[in-house]
């Protein structure tokens, strides 16, 4: 009995850990009664010796009474109710318990109908459930294998929605594979927006013939939706000419189409001097989006016993149908503004990656890649108005060219079972080879002055060294530690800091405090400094930009994993990060980010699983500024964003013919800021807090009418509310509140939505 139950518990553990995979009597392979025939001359994989020693080293479980484990196993075996006594046929052949077989479904077709209770763009932003009304549920998972290696599969989700995904795959395993994929991703951003512009969806926005922003704006406002959708088709082939060689290529085409929003600024009177722009006005516009991206990935792979190589080519070509946008200025309808939209661009990259097995249980991996980003979109004119008379463009397009060089070399060695050593060098270079020219530019349309500026191509070289060692002292304790070096050399005109470098030391201590308790502690300390900081001419000399500034970073953390019983598992984890910008008088001076998480999983019976988690995170930062423009801070802002996320769920399977489950998530965030006027020795008028609150409840039940047929019901309730001072109550145009700006009138997208689903799942 002891042996039997231990195998049974192993089976269950393996089912949980490894598989609840397909077993179907009528699968093609099964139909053909295929049984793999061991091939001649094949050798077994070389399993490292000393398994016994390793087992002792790893487990350290000698102190746990075996009887305790066996008792648990027996209890679990009894609870499973698997009819062991009926597992043999009359002929004495083994029959897999039906309960197990029933979970091993390979093919599943689900069809049904659902209903959304209300229009809610935020709820349906990415899933396609943004609109009140019924929708079709359609999901499919079909796969087939044949003894000769042929296989095919169809996988589709959300087929009745605009978030649908469909993949067809087939081929002969070990020889070739083909796939086709279609994917849609909607982005329903906002359905509360309004605009007086005509021609929404085009790149030329005009106003009604009789339009005055001060007198008849409301009468001319029209509602529209901010929404885009990505549609992507992808095809690929994988060809295996020989066992060690493989050639993969995939090609995808994606189109993103719809309407986005963009701010657009113009000077509605001519400037009085080059340093001053007269009556600058901004209007938010519906931006047309029609963009294509074509991607090709081609990889030639070699996989030998000792060495492996990948040669990869990547191509990405971005083509924007709209490269400029012109609009009629709502504050001066005789003026027109123009702006550029994302330029067409290309990216090509060739990379070579290799791995090689070395003596002393070591492995060397390396990669080198050369990439090229180019952009040569024809320029828009300096201005579409005639107030200014700039000289001719120095060139008709940028002819931009950036070369990317990426390289990596890593040596990983496991000289003994207890010691792991890793050493890595990494190099990333962005070399912007774009030529420099001087532009006699017009800052904003309608401005009568021109200014000159030269483009400042940005390049950098990043060197990293990572060294770490992990030593397992015994079955109880292991220690990992290491050193990291990160050097960044930036090259551009007026560079504040040519070079920053960061040294990091870290250590992680793991201990098995008890056979059921694992503890880990982590600490990391970094120090970043660099070359002299040369402030820009027009910038406060006490400012240190946070990504260039001297910084001391400290990270500490710990976790406890506790297996209270074989049914109850608890974990707790804390991470605390602190950044101290040691030389920053103006700018970001400090940031801290503690994260706490506790969670549990509890399986009171084999057919009941429950889980829960709680995560609390705070992101705090402090920054300083000088309104007086001196090198002494006269104001300070302290920010604190806090997040609480609670999740709990349960599943009860095999409740007669029913399975039921529930998942509940509560997520809250708040953002507060404290503005301190240091010069006045007091607080300033405080910004309101921001707030979000999400409640999501999903209830579902499956009625297993038969092994093949399952009826499913689901209820999904979700409520979201938010306060955001940046958009709440901001009118399309209110000159007394916000000067010279016309918005789209967005509102916080609170919602309260029910989704009911009823479907039928056919499994075989």
């Amino acid at each position, binding site marked *: 009995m002891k042996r039997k139950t231990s195998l049974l518990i*192993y*089976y269950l553990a*393996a089912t949980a*850990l*490894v*598989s609840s995979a397909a077993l179907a009597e009528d699968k093609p392979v099964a139909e053909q009664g295929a049984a793999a025939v061991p091939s001649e001359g094949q050798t*077994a*994989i070389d*399993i*490292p*010796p000393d398994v016994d020693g390793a*087992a002792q080293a790893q*487990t350290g*479980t*000698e102190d746990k009474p*075996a009887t305790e484990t066996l008792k648990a196993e027996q209890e679990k075996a009894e609870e499973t109710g698997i009819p062991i006594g009926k*597992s043999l046929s009359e002929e004495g052949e083994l029959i897999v318990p039906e309960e197990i077989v029933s979970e091993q479904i390979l093919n599943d077709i689900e069809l049904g109908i659902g209903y959304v209770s209300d229009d809610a763009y935020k709820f349906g932003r990415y*899933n396609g459930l943004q609109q009140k009304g019924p929708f079709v*549920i359609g999901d499919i998972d079909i796969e087939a*294998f044949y003894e000769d290696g042929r296989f095919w599969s169809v996988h589709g*989700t959300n087929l009745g929605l605009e978030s649908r995904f469909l993949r067809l795959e087939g081929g002969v395993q070990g020889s070739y594979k083909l796939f086709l994929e279609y994917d849609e*991703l909607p982005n329903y951003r906002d359905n509360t927006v309004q605009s007086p512009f005509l021609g929404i969806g085009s790149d030329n926005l005009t106003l009604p013939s009789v339009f005055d922003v001060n007198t008849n704006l409301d009468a001319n406002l029209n509602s529209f939706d901010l929404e885009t959708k990505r549609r992507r088709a992808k095809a690929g082939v994988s060809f295996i000419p020989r*066992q060690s060689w493989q050639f993969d290529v995939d090609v995808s085409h994606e189109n993103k189409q719809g309407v986005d929003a963009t*701010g657009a600024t113009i000077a509605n009177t001519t400037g009085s001097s080059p340093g001053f722009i007269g009556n600058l006005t901004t209007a938010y516009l519906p931006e047309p989006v029609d963009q294509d991206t074509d991607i090709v990935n081609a990889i030639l792979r070699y996989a030998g016993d000792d060495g492996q190589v*990948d040669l990869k080519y990547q191509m*990405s070509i*971005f083509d*924007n149908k709209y490269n400029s946008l012109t609009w009629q200025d709502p504050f001066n309808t005789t003026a027109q503004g123009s702006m550029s939209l994302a330029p067409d*661009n290309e*990216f090509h990259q060739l990379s070579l990656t290799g791995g090689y097995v070395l003596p002393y249980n070591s*492995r060397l991996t390396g990669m080198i890649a050369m990439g090229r980003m180019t*952009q040569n979109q024809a320029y828009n004119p300096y201005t579409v108005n005639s107030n200014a008379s700039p000289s001719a463009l120095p060139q008709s397009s940028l002819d*931009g060219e950036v070369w990317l060089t*990426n390289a990596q070399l*890593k040596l*990983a060695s496991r000289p003994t079972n207890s010691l792991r050593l890793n050493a890595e060098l*990494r190099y*990333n270079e962005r070399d912007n080879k774009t030529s420099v020219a001087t*532009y006699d*530019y017009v*800052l904003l349309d309608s401005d009568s002055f021109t200014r000159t500026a030269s483009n400042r191509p*940005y390049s950098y070289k990043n060197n990293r060294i990572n060294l770490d060692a*992990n030593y397992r002292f015994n079955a109880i304790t292991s220690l990992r530690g290491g050193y990291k070096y990160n050097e960044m050399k930036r090259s551009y005109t007026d560079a504040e800091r040519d070079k920053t470098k960061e040294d990091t030391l870290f250590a992680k201590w793991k201990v098995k405090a008890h*056979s059921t308790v694992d503890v880990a502690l982590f600490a990391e300390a970094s120090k970043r400094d660099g070359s002299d900081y040369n402030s820009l001419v027009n910038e406060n000399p006490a*400012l240190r930009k946070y990504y260039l500034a001297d910084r001391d970073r400290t990270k500490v953390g710990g976790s406890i994993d506790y*297996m209270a019983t074989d049914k109850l598992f608890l974990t707790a984890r804390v991470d605390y990060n602190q950044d101290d910008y040691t030389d920053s008088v103006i*700018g970001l001076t400090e940031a801290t980010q503690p994260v706490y998480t506790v969670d549990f*999983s509890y*399986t009171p019976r084999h057919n009941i699983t429950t889980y829960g988690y709680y995560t609390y995170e705070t992101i705090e930062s402090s*920054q300083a500024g000088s309104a007086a423009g001196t090198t002494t801070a006269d104001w300070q802002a302290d920010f604190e964003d806090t997040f609480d996320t609670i999740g709990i769920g349960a599943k009860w399977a095999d409740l007669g013919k029913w399975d039921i489950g529930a*998942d509940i998530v509560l*997520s809250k965030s708040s953002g507060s800021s404290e503005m301190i*006027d240091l010069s006045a020795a007091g607080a300033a008028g*405080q910004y309101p807090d*921001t707030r979000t609150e999400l409640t999501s409840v999903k209830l*579902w039940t499956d009625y297993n009418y038969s092994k093949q047929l399952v009826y499913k019901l689901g209820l*999904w309730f979700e409520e979201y509310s938010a306060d955001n001072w940046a958009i709440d109550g*901001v009118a399309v145009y209110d000159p007394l509140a916000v*000067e010279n700006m016309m*918005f789209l009138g967005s509102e916080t997208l609170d919602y309260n939505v029910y989704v009911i689903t009823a479907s039928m799942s056919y499994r075989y």
Partner: protein
Amino acid sequence: MVLLSASQIQNAAETTTSTEAATAVEASAEVTAKDEAKQAEEKAPVEVDPADPVAAGEAKHAFKEPNICEGMAEGEFLGPDVCADCHQDKVETMKVSPHGQSADKRTPFGKEGCEQCHGPGEMHFDTEGNCIVSMTGRFGESVQQRNDVCLGCHKSGDRMHWVGSLHESEDLACVSCHSIHKRNDVIHRNSQSEVCFTCHKDIRADTYRASSHPIREHKVICSDCHNAHGSAGPKSLNQFTINENCYSCHAEKRGPFLWEHYPASEDCTLCHRVHGSNHAALLNKQGPQLCQQCHADIRTQGGGRHIRNFLDFDDNDPGRARFKVVSNCANCHIKVHGSNHPSGAALQR
């Protein structure tokens, strides 16, 4: 599937229990193994219960007792049919998985079948001092030993960088995430994130924030950006740099632009919190203070309309308000990722 929730993702729910508990579960199994090893030493006779399939298998194959492994390099391969006498469920499952395709000579079933990974079956029955190799570590196999079985075949391609990767350094076994007998495995787009969230709980919390990538909807999944097996890029990203990774989907921000915004060209995460934020567009912080972290004295750069602080929210100054509300500084400087307009030096057009 529309209603797909964590509890419905069977495998994920199981993994929630199993992955982090793996060590403990394995420890429990290992205790059993040691106990059984002691019995083996005693060579207790096997009592066959005809109603017990395992016992029947043992009788048929003169099975003695499981023993702690002492090396599996030698022994006779018996073939999957023999394994199926006791482990029919496993063998049948394998037949409809990629590993079980005998026509593909690269797979276990294209070679020795179950024994290709678990070791020669002969030792499972008759020889003292040997056992099968359990991929769950049941017989005390270390994580590295078990992973080495998988890496015997899977050390190329996307697994090229496994050794020395973040996950390998954390002692993750292949089976911590993968179900090696199963067809769809962790690759399935609808269940993958739940597998990752088993450990990365802070990231799961991020996905519920007001601004997030469509991770909850399974339209962006972890492997779209990360290679869990390690990579030559930072944070196990699929591409070699953070920005290259982002440009995979946001090619319109790739440029190169005539007028660059340096931080944007260098590292998107300097301003964006990619897994989720309570600020719009995944930004790290509210504006205009986010911009003020690097642009303190904007008066002289932009001209007389600019002011240096937006400290007092209640100042009722409509001129200042334009720097605070909606997209704050980006109301005018909308081209924060770079501008290609010849007059776009101030990133306004």
